[in-house]
């Protein structure tokens, strides 16, 4: 008879959470430890919800999709950035330390305002399709066809969920607040590929051709190594760097 193997002895997890409410002047950042029994296939998403339900309803953290799609649950897990909903506790030691992603405005405890940062980046880099005479376009007409191969390549870069892990993992972004990061440079590459976007490399140079853009990147590769969607960030940045040098220098 087939039997699903069940872990007999359950581990007891100690989850230490960096807690702080920046809106409360009396609040000081401190580590609080919660103990709970590990369950089968437990993710940090499940563990945090259990803590909030059974131990401390005031604990703040973000989740939407719990499937690695929405990008809201990025946090520092034992020192490294990652998505809580995609991190299985069985791959971690018994003692787990959680902290909010650095580099973003803290909302409280593990919740940070990545959305605000991403919007600022997006407005600055104009991460949308630029086309002249869009207002005269005929929306009843079929769109021009795109080669499946090209669509695939755009989609590969489009998979970014703006979770902010690459910003938290990047030494450059930690030191320079105006650095657009791998997420921003990747989006430039995405629109550069898109045939509907009429911008030239000179236009892109005006957006990322300085130390807050592609030339600020010091190839530390934290982005490449910690992007939870495994985007090919190092290769994109290297390509963009070559294009921008060819355009600007």
């Amino acid at each position, binding site marked *: 008879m087939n039997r699903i193997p069940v872990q007999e002895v359950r581990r007891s997890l100690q989850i230490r959470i960096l807690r702080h409410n920046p809106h409360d002047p009396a609040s000081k950042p401190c580590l609080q430890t919660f103990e709970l029994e590990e369950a089968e296939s437990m993710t940090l998403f499940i563990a945090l919800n259990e803590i909030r339900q059974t131990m401390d309803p005031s604990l703040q953290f973000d989740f939407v999709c719990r499937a690695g799609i929405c990008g809201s649950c990025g946090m520092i897990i034992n020192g490294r950035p990652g998505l809580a909903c995609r991190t299985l506790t069985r791959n971690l030691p018994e003692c787990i330390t959680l902290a909010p992603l650095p580099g973003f405005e803290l909302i409280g405890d593990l919740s940070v305002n990545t959305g605000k940062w991403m919007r600022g980046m997006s407005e600055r880099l104009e991460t949308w399709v630029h086309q002249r005479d869009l207002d005269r376009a005929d929306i009843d007409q079929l769109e021009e066809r795109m080669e499946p191969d090209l669509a695939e390549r755009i989609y590969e870069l489009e998979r970014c969920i703006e979770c902010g892990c690459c910003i938290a993992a990047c030494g450059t972004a*930690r*030191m320079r607040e105006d650095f657009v990061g791998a997420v921003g440079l990747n989006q430039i590459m995405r629109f550069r590929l898109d045939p509907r976007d009429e911008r030239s490399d000179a236009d892109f140079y005006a957006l990322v051709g300085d130390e807050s853009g592609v030339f600020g990147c010091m*190839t*530390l590769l934290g982005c490449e190594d910690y992007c939870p969607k495994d985007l090919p960030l*190092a290769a994109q940045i*290297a390509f963009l760097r070559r294009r*921008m040098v060819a355009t600007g220098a």
Partner: protein
Amino acid sequence: MPKTLSALSARMDLLQSLSGLLLVLFIWAHMFFESSILLGEDAMYAVSRMFEGEPLFGKPYPLLVSAAGIAVFLLVAVHAVLALRKFPGSSRQYQLLNRHLGVIRHEDTTLWYVQVITGFCLFFLIPAHLYTVITQPENIGPYASADRVWSERFWIVYALLLLTVHVHAAIGVYRLVMKWYAPTGVQAGRTRARLKRGMWCILAFFILLGTASLLTYMRIGYQHADSAGERYRPASAPVGAR
């Protein structure tokens, strides 16, 4: 359209990498010439004479060595000035970086930091070495160099220089590849691991080669200590050779 950006950033980024690459190629070539001592005094004597232009002009011109030393010094200066832009610029940046490094313990970020530290050391070690090359170009030879290494205790500078320059150069080459031609595709991770392994192998090779020749200079200098200052005279050479 947004503001136009100057070409300066692009040029400085390219020049930083190019100057680094040229310095690496130089230092690797330098290691083979320097290690000619492993083949014996005569081999090293021939190499030092070659760089003074003797095979070309029939007569040694040590000034050529000075000129090469100055060129390398200028290249180092350009590279250092450009690379210094990447040092943490304020104590706040330094603190942020240090905290980041301590928490994330990420290999490639640490490799970069090792480059920053070795680069800082090279800032002092390279001028110490180049100063003697530029001011006393005629004092390069099997005995002259060995005496400097042993009797003038330059082995301390050279040992530190050997270690820092090769660590800096090997990491630099790996990072140059990732910076300009990071591998793509499904094999990207594997190619990167191979590049990194190559980096460690190159590093080990040059450290071993450099250590072997430094020890050889030390041995010759030790044996020659009593007559330090005397120049080498190859079996086939006319009077006045060194």
